[in-house]
């Protein structure tokens, strides 16, 4: 197979995996409604808490953007990281492994499908949130906001690709680990705070939080969409997000190869009900 043929085959595999994900997630309208409506409940609770303690109205806008970004993190955790655990449980993983395509192509397809699905839901969350809670946005530089958003999603899903390989050999701990990584990241990324990079938050916490791409991306999007910033106010964020993707992608590929080889040696790739 020539390099061109190999590339085309892998892109077709990625497209096929993306199509399954898009079709599977959108065939039931009730699911779509719940996935948009559910975060509004949590966002609503935080917006009312903000009002109870007398925080500004911009804080409400911050929590709506945070709530929309949380949808991406949840998707990365449950539909990227833990996906190969579910595939193993349902007997699909071995089919991916014997298919004449790169595992990374399958992961890329999952990431593209997952990010598109979640983007639709995130738009719904923001629109519904703005409509219900009437919070102000000051978006002066939409192109920069869109650019930062795409970079954030790329970094997040690359992280998901790396986690996918780590989760591949998990048994029941996959469910617990995905659960474990949910709320702490909501906390560290400042999804529901007005801002994580503020003097009242300890520096060590800010530094730890900066290791998560969502923290950086969320802060940049808030600066652009709520506080009227432009690309000059978020250029450091952009560099950091590019660096995250550049570091995480090769790491994902290496860890995937390592875990697959380990799984073969230990005979755990087809093991169910651990």
């Amino acid at each position: 197979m020539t390099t061109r043929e190999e590339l085309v085959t892998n892109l077709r595999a990625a497209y096929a995996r993306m199509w399954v994900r898009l079709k599977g997630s959108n065939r039931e309208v009730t699911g779509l409604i719940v996935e948009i409506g559910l975060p509004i409940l949590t966002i609503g609770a935080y917006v009312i808490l903000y009002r109870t303690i007398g925080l500004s109205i911009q804080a409400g806008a911050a929590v709506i953007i945070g709530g929309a970004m949380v949808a991406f993190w949840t998707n990365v955790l449950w539909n990227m990281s833990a996906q190969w655990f579910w595939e193993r449980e349902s007997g699909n993983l071995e089919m991916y492994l014997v298919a004449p395509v790169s595992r990374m192509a399958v992961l890329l397809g999952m990431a593209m499908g997952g990010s598109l699905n979640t983007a639709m839901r995130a738009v719904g969350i923001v629109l519904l949130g703005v409509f219900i809670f009437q919070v102000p946005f000051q978006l002066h530089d939409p192109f920069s906001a869109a650019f930062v958003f795409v970079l954030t999603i790329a970094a997040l899903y690359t992280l998901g690709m790396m986690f996918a390989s780590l989760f591949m050999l998990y048994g029941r701990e996959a469910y617990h680990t995905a659960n474990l990584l949910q709320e702490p990241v909501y906390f560290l990324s400042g999804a529901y705070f007005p801002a994580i990079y503020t003097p009242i938050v300890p520096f060590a916490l800010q530094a730890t939080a900066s290791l998560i791409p969502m923290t950086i991306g969320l802060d940049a999007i808030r600066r652009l969409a709520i506080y009227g910033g432009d690309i000059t106010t978020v250029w450091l964020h952009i560099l950091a997000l590019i660096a995250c993707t550049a570091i995480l992608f090769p790491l994902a590929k290496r860890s995937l190869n390592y875990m697959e080889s380990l799984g073969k040696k230990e005979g755990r790739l087809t093991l169910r009900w651990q």
Partner: protein
Amino acid sequence: MAVADFIKSARESFRVGWKIESNWTDPVLFATYQIVRPLASLLIVAFIVIIGASLGTSASAGFYSQYLAWLIVGNAFYAYVLQVMLGMAILVHVDRTEYEVLKNIYISPGTLHPYVIGRGLVSVLNGTVSVILTLIFSVLIFNGLLHYNIPLNLLQVNVFMLFPAVILGIIGLLAIGYMLCAVTIVSNRMEFVLGDSVSGIFFLLGGVIFPVTGLPTLIQPISRVLPITYFLNAIRESFGLLPTGQYLSDLGFLALTTVVTVALGIGLFRLAEQRARKLGLIDRKSEY
């Protein structure tokens, strides 16, 4: 005899459930997993209040420390809601589709009822571990490490007020969990959103992170028919927190809403069971 059999079946179900939930790792790691999620949730709301206080909003410092104590207790006991709702919403799916044992349980003499109760009690035990650890860590973090002097003394809790509220609250939550099992037994692909949806509704309407008076007036009546609202009120009073002087009425309303929820839960589960049997859903395979 029937009661003894029921208890025996529920006990065995609890034993199996506990093993499934806990024997994938060692006890220390298990306890860590139990504490991280509720503690992170608590830190989110606590930091919102701390940031609010730092931004110099109108309220006094005393208001914020009182409010933090109020939040810590509410959030800690909300772990029961999360554990029971998430655990029981997914139970039917896991046993029917993943392990494919629901049909075996169904045809065994004990029926599904004690099985569901036993598994629900595992979630209650998990919740208890989370509540205790969250309360201890909260006091250590906010009073020991950050010196916020929150008026929360775990040694001065009125256990005679606490235990009746906890027991009634748990019964109410198990009854709601029963309803979730009923819904999942006759539905498909609802299991992953149902638990989150119901716990999300309780998070918003149950007075977990703000008093129900903060809700829009039109929505407040819904809060007043939820057992979780009275459960958290009674719990907070046993810790000496607001609202004080309403313990007996809160406990009374908690008992009343719990009785109604139990009746609804049992009725709905029986209806769902009959429908599932009629439509052949007990051994449905849906993971495709």
